[in-house]
């Protein structure tokens, strides 16, 4: 008994020591926070009190030269690589030597950011971080509702660093309108744009005389039949991540169908605000019916569910598949594996029966970054300045050349010499847009659902996608089942 008591006493003592140590370390964090607040206070006082001499501030932005700032930066290292952002940071540091970066690069940045957000430690959190976060549009909406990220609408009126007084808004065309907004505000100004759809080898299409710009659904299915008859896989995608199929047969296609049906506003409202019918909407039912139709034609690879995105894109490059559902970053991502003679082409799967029907693509603003709202004011100001810096023409050119995506500056796109520096895949996208009536849409939402039934509805639809694309499962009953789950989730949320 006495022995037992001693063991308990020892365990308790250990616990006390450990808890005390952790408490001390926690206090340390708070102290840091306090000193940071003090720094913020100083920065604010510097501005409001106008005690700083004019020579101590940068004339371009009015920020102090003598206060050192380190921006913790989370860069999502995706198919765009990191060269362009390194260039942007290097030139920014040269211009503003008091600012430095502590950069974390990772292809799995969404997981890192998600963990840090949940830890809710403002000191440890990044100042600037990729807008590609785990949980997708719902997580972004939650961040906005919780006031965790900084609105960036003011940046549209910010003057560009390299263009005689023009604002960013004046230097773009369609980017302002197309940038995702959450509850009416923009939280990640894009520094590039991505377009998804079907990419193909032009040389192969030319050699076979295949239609490179089908204007209607029937022309498209005829193309699929022709390719299939030649022994190739018409369309490949990585079934391990079925979202890639949605890059061509997803939200954009549903918007196209909604416009054809004259139902655009209602569909838009249902999507953005999680209203029903959504999974069982005429557009969703029709789109999945068409994927099923393609599946029955064996338009997609056998065993597609096992394909990774590298395997699927290799099928395209090695000539086993005619088209791949992906984004314009594909060229940069696969640059070491592209065979000689491969020429990039792009098309969207047309949903209408009339050649002039509007085609929609899923548009993703690239290089968009959030700013953590609970950071010191000075850090946030410098973070915004850096995002503006990425609009400089030289940075945009690096983005076009090294990242392989589309820049946002219209003066870049309108300058033939500069536009020439684009990689072939994004050029193919521009070529397609020139020859067709195309609009873009984003996946941002205004409402989030946390009820498990919402997750299950989405899971149900995602899970059937490969089977539908293999022609094995009729999607309609499953979509109706998903709709019922969504209704339950909406009711539970209320």
């Amino acid at each position: 008994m006495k022995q037992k008591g001693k063991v308990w006493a020892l365990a308790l003592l250990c616990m006390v020591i450990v808890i005390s140590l952790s408490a001390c370390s926690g206090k340390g964090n708070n102290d840091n926070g306090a000193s940071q607040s003090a720094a913020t206070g100083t920065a604010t006082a510097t501005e409001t009190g106008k005690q700083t001499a004019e020579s101590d501030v940068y004339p371009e932005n009015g920020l102090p030269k003598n206060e050192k700032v380190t921006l913790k930066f989370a860069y999502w290292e995706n198919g765009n690589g990191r060269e362009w952002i390194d260039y942007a940071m290097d030139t920014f540091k040269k211009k503003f030597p008091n600012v430095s970066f502590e950069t974390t690069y990772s292809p799995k940045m969404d997981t890192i950011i998600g963990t840090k957000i949940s830890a809710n430690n403002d000191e440890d959190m990044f100042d600037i971080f990729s807008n590609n976060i785990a949980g997708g549009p719902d997580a972004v909406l939650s961040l906005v509702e919780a006031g965790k990220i900084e609105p960036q609408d003011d940046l549209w009126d910010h003057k560009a660093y390299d263009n005689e007084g023009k604002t960013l808004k004046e230097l773009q065309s369609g980017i302002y309108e197309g940038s995702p907004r959450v509850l009416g505000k923009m939280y990640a100004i894009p520094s590039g744009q991505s377009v998804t759809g079907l990419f193909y080898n032009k040389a192969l299409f030319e050699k076979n005389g295949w239609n490179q710009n089908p204007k209607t659904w029937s022309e498209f299915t005829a193309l699929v039949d022709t390719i299939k008859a030649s022994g190739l896989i018409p369309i490949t995608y990585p079934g391990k991540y079925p979202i890639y199929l949605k890059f061509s047969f997803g939200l954009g296609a549903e918007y196209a169908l909604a416009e054809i049906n004259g139902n655009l506003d209602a569909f838009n409202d249902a999507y953005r605000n999680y209203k029903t019918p959504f999974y069982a909407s005429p557009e969703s039912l029709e789109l999945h019916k068409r994927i099923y139709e393609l599946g029955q034609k064996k338009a997609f690879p056998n065993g597609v569910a096992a394909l990774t995105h590298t395997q699927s894109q290799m099928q395209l490059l090695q000539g086993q598949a005619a088209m791949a559902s992906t984004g314009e970053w594909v060229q940069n991502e696969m640059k070491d594996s592209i065979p000689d003679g491969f020429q990039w082409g792009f098309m969207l799967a047309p949903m209408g029966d009339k050649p002039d029907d509007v085609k929609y693509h899923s548009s993703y603003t690239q290089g968009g970054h959030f700013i953590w709202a609970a950071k010191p004011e000075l850090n946030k100001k410098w973070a915004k300045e850096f995002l503006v810096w990425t609009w400089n023409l030289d940075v945009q050119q690096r983005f076009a050349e090294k990242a392989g995506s589309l820049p946002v500056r219209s003066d870049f796109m309108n300058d033939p010499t500069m536009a020439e520096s684009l990689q072939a895949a994004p050029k193919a996208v521009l070529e397609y847009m020139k020859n067709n009536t195309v609009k873009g849409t984003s996946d941002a939402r205004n409402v989030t659902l946390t009820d498990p039934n919402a997750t299950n509805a989405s899971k149900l639809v995602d899970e059937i996608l490969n089977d539908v694309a293999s022609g094995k499962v009729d999607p309609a009953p499953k979509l109706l089942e998903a709709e019922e789950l969504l209704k339950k989730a909406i009711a539970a949320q209320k």
Partner: protein
Amino acid sequence: MEDMPIPVNNAGQPRRSWQQKAKFQKRLFILLATTPAFGGYILFTLYPNLLSVYYSLLNWNGIKEPVFVGLENFKNMFQDKYVWRALWHNVLYMATIPPLVIFISLILAYVLGNKGYRLTSIYKVLFFFPNVLSTVAISLLWAFVYDGTFGLLNAGLRMIGIDVGNFYWLGERETALWATIPPAVWGGVGFYFVIFLNAMSTIPKSLYESAILEGASHTTRLFRITLPLMMPIIRVSAIFLMLGVFKGFENILILTNGGPSGSTDVIGLYMFNAAFGTGIHNYGYASAIGMMLFVLLVVVKLIIDRFTANQDAEY
């Protein structure tokens, strides 16, 4: 018993004896020695686990303020058909992987331990080799084996006259679940093979010699001497394997990500995706699944104990 006289110092106060000092020093040493390990356990195991009990009562996506929902997550969990589907897959894995690993490890250990092959030490290294590979490496390796176009399996089948075309073993609902079993078995055999081999070598030779003198065959010696004497180790191995299979999901995440159409989803992966997946995050719901997993693991352990506890033999 007569009490020892208490030594006093110059001031007449009792002086602490050498034993008393030693006792104090011993306690201090134990305290210093155990605090880091015990502290690590409290901070990184006990505290998070207790916290997840609390999380399981919340509706929390990691961003917004958590909302206390009582047992709602548990209610939803029992009504969630995907939970039951994932558990069923776990049951299938538990019914196949541990018995296969134990059976193959025992055979290998018995053969190499008794036959006295010249290359036994090389075989030991070869069989143990998968164990030094990470789950990620093993899974990627097997993903290539199962590849439809360039996979070793299809090529091997073609060599023996079976042409399955470009069949993706991990891409079809009918085969994916079964195709994920060999990588798990291959990765697990090496460790248990070494354990069983060493356990066999500790059985006294005299037992076998007596058995041989009495005319016992190989089979009789295996089932009457070797296996009964190894039963405690086999039981512990079975527990480790069962628990590992039940809570593990890394190989599934890499090989199939739960697909195709959820046909390889397991409860650990389902829990992981509820918390960190690409869809809506719900840490509360994921924690509730974690709680259920904990209870199930305890039950599994008790069941194994119940059915194997009385089969030990001593020598």
